[in-house]
């Protein structure tokens, strides 16, 4: 918010009158905040009302539960020689009478969820607002003071990292039992909500039933209020995993849960209770009972053999023994020994420290990570090894190839909507996210096409419908690692043809067609070492999301499917709510054959014939549904040595060609190897397009024709 001088209803105003709520000072908003009459004009506001206390926010990492209290932070600062840690002495309170409420840990033969539970009564307290100093401390960290008893527990949570709980003893019936929850049991918590419990959760119950969700939140029925006279103070330890599990299951984020699931200092359980007793006696008066303790403090006597050389081994930093001992001691570790190996005992509040590496971290972070000098990593053993796998190499080649053909690379989400997934061969239940971030990002994509098609449509909606997009990325056929494939996929929309986009003075703006996509696909394959002649174009074999008549699969033999190309199926486009013209292709980079291990990089010798190649034209009259590709293949197969090139240079149907037929014209390039082709061989063997009579002499021409699908005849009158 920025305040400035302005005019309001014709009256100049140099500021704004604010309520406490508008300034974020209170929840109430009952009018403008009034300042004392002697408030100095022109001075900053915060100091006047005593809110200029700096706030230091500490992002405590999950391993450092000891720093979830001010005391732990102070200890760490002292170890870094910022101040001195004050450890107040703590005298236990002598109980004046036995605690009238007993406690029992009852987990039967199941693993216990609590090792220790301590309880004490303070009778005759006077509960009310806590003193100013306590309220101020709580408010300064954003906590709301409630009443003295509750405030004491909250104070110790933040001051010492020791969550406690107070029960109003008058509302507790009988003894307390700490046990597992029961399926069907429900619990009314302090936050006013009811929670359904089960046997994975730990509860504290009395004769009425569950009174507290252990270590997470107290119950509404036994909470302390202004009328509380006798209070029961609880200090306990809980199984961190059970706390975490329960908190997650019930979605309760409390300060107690936050600490218990990360680990509180077990050795401070009883001292924490004593500290709370003292504060309550001090503030609320009353008389304390003796302690009731169920269970015992779990022992974790971890002593680590710590060679000082470990610091150098892991960090490169050379340290003297004193430099190791001092910070560890200040952090509360007990260090003994004088040689190269120290014995280090881990304090009870450091559950994160397990071994040597943890101690190295403690030493180095206190000495200062900036003391570690950068030192060059020794050269790798070999420069020669390839750093990329074949599929990684293919992916980068495919990327640059497609970009060089004018397509623009996109990166789209790995998840698509259920409908998109289903339309492109996916939608398996095992690939649907249990917790999708949005309904349209619910399923792992089976293909890159839906993402690219949607992207093309978004561009069209923005007014640029002539787009050519591609993506090289992972798709998922199942949930196993081997079901993940790397694909190179592209779409072209509108007039975004391979030879140019949009209107142009020299050429018509034609819509994209299947051949643009075919060109893209074959270019990728060519860049990856597969020539167009080695790839089969399997018409009718493309996946169902392509137009059945204007698409094909790309195959190597009957088994290896490299991909597909074509127009997208109109029904799929309609279902996705997108408009065309739209063509696309998909290449599965993992499907390409693995590169053959070669003994040599040398290529076979070049054979450049000194003899002139010849070009001869042939025209064929074929059934309309005869694939031209087969004719070309047949021509190539007629004499693999002699025929070096076959170009289909004309395709004609219409007047002059019988109904249902098509005229296909081939230019066949013949490369003589040893001697010039004699006229007889040249003309006789291969025929010309001049006469059927001569053709009959041609052995190879017969082969050429016979190899082509049945029903094919030479077109007696070529169209060119």
């Amino acid at each position, binding site marked *: 918010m920025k305040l400035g001088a302005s005019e309001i209803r014709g009256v100049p105003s140099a500021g704004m009158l604010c309520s406490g709520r508008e300034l974020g000072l209170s929840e109430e908003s009952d009018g403008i905040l009034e300042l004392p009459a002697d408030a100095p004009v022109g001075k900053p506001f915060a100091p006047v009302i005593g809110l200029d206390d700096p706030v230091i926010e500490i992002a405590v990492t*999950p*391993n450092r539960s000891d720093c979830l209290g001010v005391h732990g932070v102070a200890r760490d600062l002292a170890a870094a020689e910022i101040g001195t840690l004050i450890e107040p002495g703590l005298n236990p309170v002598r109980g004046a009478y036995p605690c009238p409420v007993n406690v029992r840990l009852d987990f039967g033969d199941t693993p216990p969820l609590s090792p220790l539970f301590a309880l004490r009564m303070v009778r005759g307290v006077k509960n009310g607002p806590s003193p100013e100093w306590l309220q101020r401390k709580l408010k300064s960290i954003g906590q709301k003071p409630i009443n003295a008893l509750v405030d004491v527990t909250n104070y110790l949570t933040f001051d010492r990292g020791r969550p406690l709980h107070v029960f109003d003893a008058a509302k507790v019936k009988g003894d307390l039992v700490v046990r597992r929850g029961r399926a069907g049991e429900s619990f009314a918590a302090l936050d006013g909500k009811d929670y359904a419990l089960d046997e994975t959760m730990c509860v504290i119950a009395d004769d009425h039933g569950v009174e507290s969700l252990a270590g997470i939140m107290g119950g509404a029925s036994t909470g302390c209020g202004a009328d509380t006279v006798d209070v029961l103070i609880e200090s306990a330890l809980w199984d961190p*995993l059970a706390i*975490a599990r329960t908190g997650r299951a019930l979605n309760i984020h409390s300060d107690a849960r936050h600490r218990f*699931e*990360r680990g509180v200092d077990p050795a401070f359980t009883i001292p924490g209770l004593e500290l709370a007793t003292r504060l309550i006696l001090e503030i609320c008066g009353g008389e304390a009972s003796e302690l009731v303790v169920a269970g015992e403090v779990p022992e974790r006597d971890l002593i680590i053999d710590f060679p000082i050389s470990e610091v150098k*081994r*892991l*960090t*490169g930093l050379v340290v003297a023994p004193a430099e190791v001992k001092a910070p560890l001691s200040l952090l509360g570790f007990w260090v003994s020994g004088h040689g190269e190996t120290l014995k280090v005992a881990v304090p009870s509040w450091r559950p994160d420290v397990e071994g040597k*590496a*943890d101690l190295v*971290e403690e030493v*180095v972070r206190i000495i200062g*990570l*900036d003391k*570690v000098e*950068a*030192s*060059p*990593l020794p*050269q790798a053993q070999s420069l020669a*090894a390839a*750093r990329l*796998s074949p599929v*990684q190499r293919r992916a*980068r080649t495919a990327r*640059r190839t497609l*970009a*060089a053909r*004018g397509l*623009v*690379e996109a990166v*789209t*989400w*790995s*998840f698509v909507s259920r409908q998109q997934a289903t339309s492109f061969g996916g939608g398996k239940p095992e*690939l*649907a*996210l*249990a*917790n999708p*971030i949005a309904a349209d990002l619910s399923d*792992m994509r089976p293909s890159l096409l839906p993402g690219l098609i949607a*992207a093309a449509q978004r*561009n069209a909606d923005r007014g*640029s419908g002539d*787009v050519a*997009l591609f993506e090289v990325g*992972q798709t*998922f056929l199942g*949930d*196993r*690692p081997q079901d*993940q494939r790397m694909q190179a996929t592209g779409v072209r929309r509108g007039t975004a043809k*391979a*030879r*140019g*986009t949009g209107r142009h003075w*020299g050429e018509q703006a034609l819509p994209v067609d299947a051949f643009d996509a075919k060109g893209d696909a074959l270019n990728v394959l060519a860049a990856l070492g597969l020539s167009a002649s080695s790839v089969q174009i399997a018409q009718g074999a493309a996946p169902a999301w392509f137009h059945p008549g204007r698409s094909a699969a790309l195959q190597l033999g009957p088994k290896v499917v490299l991909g597909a190309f074509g127009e997208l199926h109109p029904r799929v486009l309609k279902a996705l709510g997108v408009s065309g013209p739209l063509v696309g292709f998909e290449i599965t980079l993992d499907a390409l054959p693995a590169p053959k291990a070669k003994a040599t990089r040398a290529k076979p010798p070049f054979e450049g014939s000194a003899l002139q190649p010849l070009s001869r034209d042939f025209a064929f009259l074929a059934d309309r549904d005869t694939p031209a590709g087969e004719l070309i293949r047949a021509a190539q197969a007629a004499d693999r040595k002699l025929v070096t090139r076959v170009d289909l240079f004309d395709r004609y149907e219409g007047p002059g060609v019988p109904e249902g037929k098509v005229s296909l014209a081939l230019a066949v390039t013949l490369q003589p190897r040893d001697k010039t082709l004699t006229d007889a061989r040249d003309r006789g063997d291969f025929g010309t397009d001049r006469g059927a009579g001569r053709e009959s002499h041609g052995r190879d021409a017969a082969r050429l024709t016979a190899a082509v699908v049945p029903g094919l005849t030479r077109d007696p009158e070529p169209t060119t």
Partner: protein
Amino acid sequence: MTDLSELSSLETQLLAEIEAASDEASLEALRVAALGKKGSVSEKMKTLGSMDPETRKTFGPALNGLRDKIATALTEKKAALADAALDARLAAETLDVSLPVRETGLETGRIHPVSQVTDEIVAIFSAMGFSVAEGPDIETDDYNFTKLNFPVGHPAREMHDTFFLPQKDDGSRLVLRTHTSPVQIRAMEASKPPIRVICPGRTYRFDMDQTHTPMFHQVEGLVIDQSANLGHLKWVLEEFLKTFFEVPSVELRFRPSFFPFTEPSMEVDVRCRRLPNEVRIGEGDDWLEILGCGMVHPNVLRNVGIDPDVYQGFAWGMGIDRIAMLKYGMPDLRDLFNADARWLAHYGFRPLDFPTLAGGLSS
């Protein structure tokens, strides 16, 4: 008999006629009229035979000279006429070469910044001897968490807002990997030390706001051998960052932190200057958190059967999208996955700008 003056006037006349010829046809007529069988010069040549030797001595060279001169003049004139004719044709043949050609391939195609930056990263680390390792996006809980020293049920797992796949009959759930660290586990399982790999790839966390997307890209690095220490890690990161950001030097600040799979763990800040539309790395008085790193936790090494008292190593991880945005001044992460052709044309890279160390990373 002819005298020499007659020859001289014939020469003058023929040369004038040749000079005056306006096209190849009239030039050819002139050639025939002079040098043809019955041409004026040829007729004179015929008279040489009947001359007495004295006269022939004089007339022979003169006639030959005349014939050569005329022939030369004809040739030259012919060439001149041809030149003129070509000039005239060319003058009529101009194209409006300002007409545009169609933009194709290399002009319109673009590489996505994430791919380009990944290639830059690979170029740098491959020179340092790192191979590129990859793994599946759909991972087991074991690889994504447990083997990386995230205890089951531990709150550290909640640092990662995980996407889950449906629960299986045995109660297990696959996850979308929340980091590329499981690839490190797979790399350590697949080969024996020494190991140097980087693991670039897609990662997923349940998060969507201005600076988070549910899918993003990470690159992690891993070195395992018998001597790799924190000093080496610092050097690797410094070398990488200055090479990547193409600046003469970088200054790094290592802060202690926590990751379950490293011990010690650190977060790394880099010195920078914040400008309105960009962040300059390697200068200024500001700091920017850029990556996390540490020495591989002994538990992680044990989990893959490597003895942590014999082998050691370090690992680091950073966001590819993030360093791409920093280097190339892209303001909003979400734009990276929007496939807006205008944005891609603006921030994308030309197809043949392949990053290499030899050629300088970016052009």
